[in-house]
């Protein structure tokens, strides 16, 4: 476990975000970062009928829960920076929903931390998606996937 003085950046916002801006902010005035890994989650339309996803969240707990996950990640990997942005409100297909960036001296820690953050964020951060259909009707709530719970279990082996 390295010196974990870094404070993860966590933002829950309605507005879109810009990957380049966020990476620049994490790497500004630093010469010691060797690896930047980012994950961007987009709103995906599989059937050609999705007008938008509506993301509901639990204000306060959303920030707190992602902060708890981020604290676990910084304790587990020698990171130099960690950021998570999650949007709420209406997001159209092709638009961005979530961003995770992990920076480290070496790639392995950055890859794993970003992967870990996303697995936990999907199953623990209090957000719920509802589909809005192109005919103007409000569709159903998106159901949680067992595969997301299984993805989280990977990180607990040998713990």
């Amino acid at each position, binding site marked *: 476990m390295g010196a974990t003085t870094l404070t993860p950046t966590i933002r829950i916002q309605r507005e879109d975000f810009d990957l380049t801006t966020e990476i620049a902010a994490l790497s500004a005035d630093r010469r010691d970062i060797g690896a930047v890994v980012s994950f961007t989650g987009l709103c995906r339309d599989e059937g050609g009928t999705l007008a938008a996803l509506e993301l509901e969240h*639990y*204000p*306060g707990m959303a920030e*707190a829960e992602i902060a708890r996950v981020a604290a676990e990640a910084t304790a587990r990997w020698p990171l130099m920076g960690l950021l998570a942005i999650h949007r709420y409100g209406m997001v159209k297909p092709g638009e961005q929903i979530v961003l995770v960036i992990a920076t480290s001296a070496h790639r392995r820690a950055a890859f794993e931390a970003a992967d870990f953050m996303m697995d936990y964020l*999907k199953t*623990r951060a209090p957000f719920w998606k*509802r589909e809005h259909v192109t005919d103007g009707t409000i569709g159903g*709530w998106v*159901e949680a996937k067992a595969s997301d719970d299984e993805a989280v279990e990977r990180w607990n082996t040998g713990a």
Partner: protein
Amino acid sequence: MTQALATSAPATQARSVRLVYFAWVRERVGMAEEQVELPAGTRTVLDLVRWLKTRDEGYAAAFENETLVRAAINQTHVKPGASLEGASEIAFFPPMTGG
């Protein structure tokens, strides 16, 4: 939304807690939040769920599957058996689908 502060009222006394609901739990219950007096003997999250189910058909539908609905006490995830002692804000919601 302001963050609720934990109170330290004795568990044996009737006390008021804020309940908040999200997504389809909110829709079935028919409101986003309410203040309720915990009935005597309501010690755990599951006790609370079983009492809520008796209030009307909306609650009954929301908590039809008692272990499917997730709970948080004071904005931290908890299991159904968790104690309500010190709880001021109790949230109920479906499994999460963010990310």
